[in-house]
């Protein structure tokens, strides 16, 4: 995590602001629909909720071009390796959002075939609870993610690539 007392040179701080402004306003989600939550995710992109307002409507079909992994739905043990691979295919910087109770912790399925929480395989930035979460809930989660991105310091990672690899 970032130490708030750590000093950042003025130029770098401005650069950070600049880069994070771009990153948080252009979060292209990876269109990965797994189960019920995927329908609500699509509803969020559709007319009434329209995440295009935040520049997030470009659902990329290829993980190579996406910034945000919305894990929308139940992750099964059979699907988990696939998800991990997709996550690895996404280029840095990338963020993950666990949408719905199933992705957070298995939800109502404590069974032999369900992965009990997607953070066992990929690092999740924001959890959005609900079964499924309403579009408003998802948008709220995305806003929280935007705030989180605004607090990040990308220049630190650019200047010191090893730090990223360690985290």
């Amino acid at each position, binding site marked *: 995590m970032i130490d708030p007392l750590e000093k950042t040179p003025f130029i770098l701080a401005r650069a950070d602001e600049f880069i994070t402004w771009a*990153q948080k306003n252009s979060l292209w989600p990876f269109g990965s629909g797994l189960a019920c939550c995927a329908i609500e995710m699509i509803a969020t992109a559709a007319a009434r909720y329209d995440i295009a307002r935040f*520049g997030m409507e470009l659902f990329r079909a290829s993980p190579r071009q996406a910034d945000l992994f919305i894990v929308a739905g139940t992750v099964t043990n059979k699907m988990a390796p696939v998800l991990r691979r997709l996550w690895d295919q996404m280029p840095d*910087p990338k963020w993950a959002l666990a949408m719905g109770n199933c992705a957070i912790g298995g939800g109502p399925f404590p069974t032999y075939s369900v992965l009990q929480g997607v953070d066992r395989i990929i690092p999740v930035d924001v959890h959005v609870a609900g079964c499924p979460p309403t579009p408003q809930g998802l948008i709220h989660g995305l806003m929280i993610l935007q705030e989180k991105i605004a607090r990040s310091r990308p220049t630190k990672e650019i200047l010191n690539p090893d730090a990223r690899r360690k985290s």
Partner: protein
Amino acid sequence: MTPFVADLLIPVGKIVAVILYPMVMVMVMIWLERRVVALMQGRLGPNRVGFQGVLQPVADALKLFFKEDIIPRQADKLLFNISPILVMFSSLLAFCFVPLGEPIRIGTYTLTLWIAESQVGLLIVLGLSSISVFGVIFGGWASNSKYPLMGALRSVVQVLSYEIPLGLTVLTVAFVARSMDLVEIVRRQEASGVWYGFLMPISFVVFWISAVAETNRAPFDLPEAESELVAGYHTEYSGMKFAYFYMAEYAHMVLVSSLVVILFFGGWLPPFPSVKALDFLDAVPGFAWYLIKIMFFLYLYVWIRATFPRYRFDSLIRLVWKWLIPLALANFLAVVLVRHLR
């Protein structure tokens, strides 16, 4: 004007302009497309970043600039790296030959609104714009992945087929104008008093359809059909290289729209030259007319995309070989005959 200004500053300025102009148009186009499509679908579209979301493409480009660049291990590295550059620069290079208006006289100096004037400007522009398909093919092949390869193969067949009606219709324009010089073609339209789009509507329609296919846009967006081929030929590209493909597609659209305007709709000429009551239209600078006309065709692109489903591969090829090419050929013969008899 001192030689220093004339010989050094102005060329440098022009070089900057020829890079900036397409890029600004691309940014505007990306924003326009996302807003207009959204409004057609009962949504709002990007409206948070800057006034009405105009900075959205800037944010996108910046973000992509700071993304990690992944080269798949199995990829052919050289071709993989070259192809986005090839695509981007062939489109940008073509803009050197696209005039933006009549030369402007500043004192004794004549400022030409193009970088390179050529007697065969039309051929060069078409040639350069078809080079970009090599970028698509190389990119799809070099990714060493099946979906990009299929996208690239589709692209080859599509571009090969659609070049023919494109060439045939361009030939009619060159024939009527008796020139391949883009500036000269506009001047001929001014002299004859009628834009070629109205003189030869079939040429225009065939050219436009082929041009949409050439730019891989809906309903001919098979090489990057998202619901079939994931992201088509650029599936494996990330970061700035993907941005190059993305921007090149829009630059290509701007280029094609410019060509349509120059060849068929009088370039920078104001409309209705023969109507005396509308003479005040001449007061508007030619460049403004030019931009307005280009914007109209860009809007048409977006409109078509929001309306039509995607063609299937076989019907796409059937359309060009069974309809467009015979039509273009007949049209060409008709133009030659009419021209000869007169």
